[in-house]
């Protein structure tokens, strides 16, 4: 009896620890974003802004009206979305073949995906830097979309093939027997069943592209294509000897909002997607 009580107490304490672990640094960066520039320059240790050291929304106003920052947001959204859509299309074709068809070279595809998932991306920036400049796609959207696609394909292929293995494909034939045309059978039966998987793969791909830093700083040089993480790291403000901590924090919060919104809406799907491929259940 006492044992099970202790178990329950342990679980509750554990759950609280998880919440603190996950949310404390996020709360910290939000709190920092409300400290005033002046307070930060003079030094304001402590978790919350001190009285008189608060900035209200002014850091956010500065960030949003900053041209470079706005440009970086647009770059990040555009590049990540295009890379996501293309990557998911290619991954869907490949995952269908892996889950449904017998063909030679299936192991080769899966091995390639595994190697690429573990590839040390920095070892590519030298040759890519050189090649992209020769091809004229250095510092363009395309120059980032291509590597993002290749590096998100493994995760997208795994997620999608795990989903596709679970789809009862006989239902397609059953619908046709019942008088549906093959297009109707595909659209009304298979598409709704496959959609959650495609969707999960898309979210995970988007996360990867949004998070990338190595390609973002190596393959861009101007605000023409520089994505958010790179822009944040170069964002030093007017005084280079004094990093505008609270302004950076406001920028970081703005850059994190899209991700948090996606997580809040699609929590179930993301968890299923992250674990569906990784461990067969």
């Amino acid at each position, binding site marked *: 009896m006492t044992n099970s009580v202790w178990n329950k107490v342990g679980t509750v304490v554990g759950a609280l620890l998880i919440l603190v672990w996950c949310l404390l640094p996020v709360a910290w960066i939000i709190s920092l974003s409300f400290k005033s520039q002046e307070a930060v320059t003079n030094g304001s240790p402590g978790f919350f802004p001190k009285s008189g050291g608060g900035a209200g929304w002014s850091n956010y106003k500065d960030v949003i009206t900053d041209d470079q920052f706005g440009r970086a947001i647009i770059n990040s959204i555009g590049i990540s979305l295009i890379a996501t859509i293309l990557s998911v299309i290619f991954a869907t074709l490949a995952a269908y073949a892996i889950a449904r068809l017998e063909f030679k070279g299936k192991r080769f595809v899966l091995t390639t995906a595994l190697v690429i998932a573990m590839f040390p991306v920095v070892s590519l920036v030298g040759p890519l830097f050189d090649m992209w400049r020769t091809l004229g796609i250095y510092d363009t959207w395309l120059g980032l979309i291509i590597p993002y696609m290749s590096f998100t394909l493994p995760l997208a292929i795994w997620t999608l093939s795990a989903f596709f293995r679970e789809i009862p494909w006989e239902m397609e034939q059953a619908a046709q027997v019942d008088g549906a045309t093959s297009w109707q059978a595909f659209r009304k039966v298979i598409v709704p069943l496959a959609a959650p998987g495609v969707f999960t793969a898309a979210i995970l791909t988007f996360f990867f592209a949004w998070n990338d830093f190595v390609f973002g700083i190596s393959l861009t040089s101007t605000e023409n294509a520089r994505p958010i993480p790179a822009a944040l790291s170069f964002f030093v403000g007017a005084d280079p000897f004094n990093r505008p901590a609270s302004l950076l924090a406001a920028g970081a919060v703005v850059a994190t909002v899209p991700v948090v919104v996606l997580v809040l809406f699609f929590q179930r799907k993301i968890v299923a997607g992250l674990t569906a491929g*990784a461990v067969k259940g």
Partner: protein
Amino acid sequence: MSHAATATAPPRDSDRARAENSLGRRLVAPAIVLMLLVTAFPMLRALYLSLFNYSLTAPDDREFVGLSNYMTALSDSLFWRDTINTVGIMIITVAFELVIGFAFAMVMHRVIFARGTIRTSILIPYGVITVVSGFAWQFAFSNTNGFVNGWLPFVGTDFNWFSEYSSSMVAIMASEIWKTTPFMSLLLLAGLAQVSDDMIEAAKVDGASWWQRLWRVILPNMRSAIMVAVLFRALDAYRIFDNIFVMTAGANNTESISFLTYRQVIEQFQLGIGSALSVLLFLSVLVVAFVIVKVFRVNLAEARQEG
């Protein structure tokens, strides 16, 4: 297995099998081409460039120097210092992530209330950009604007974490561990879900203590999930770059091997020696992967997600 199947298949099926084979290959072709285009081809190019003394600031002076770039890199103490840093970060962060991640997975497996809230919040560190995590922790550890010094009882309020090697490394690893533990715990949660409750119950009836059940029943039964998670996380940790770039920029000898390669190529435009470092980085990842797969006997079919 598949050999026997093809041998005994009736001949009229071979046309179909051939059509299926070619359709399969056509469907995977675009993905394969794209993956190799951005990895295999540039790697071969790096292999080629690494044999030259080649700087982008003086592209016309490019000359063939054979393996001397490799000699330079391998005989430089900087290379070994950064390799040791990288391996150290990999071992320490993965060990912490494994223990904390497992504890989190156990809690998530058992918790009944607020399941959705906990799973949503565990995804937030996973979704936060690494650069942002680096900033958050850098400012948290800062002695002028942070809170860590005020909260930790054993450090003075004006202790500067970024003034020396080991405390800088602690800060870098804190950011790394914070951000990636949730991913680890989700992989372990999936493994935990596969351990049958009947088995645990049977061990309980037989009088096994909680500790015995953990070590004799739960862990052995989720061994392959743990190994795959370790393999993925270890190789990801070996690539550490973002956190170091943001938090210390390599100051106080905190540079990683990825950072060294980046500096040679992008900041110094030394494509020759930079390419040699790229090749060495790639080879060292292969060695690390090989060691992990052999030592921990990772089931590669599982890692490849054959199903």
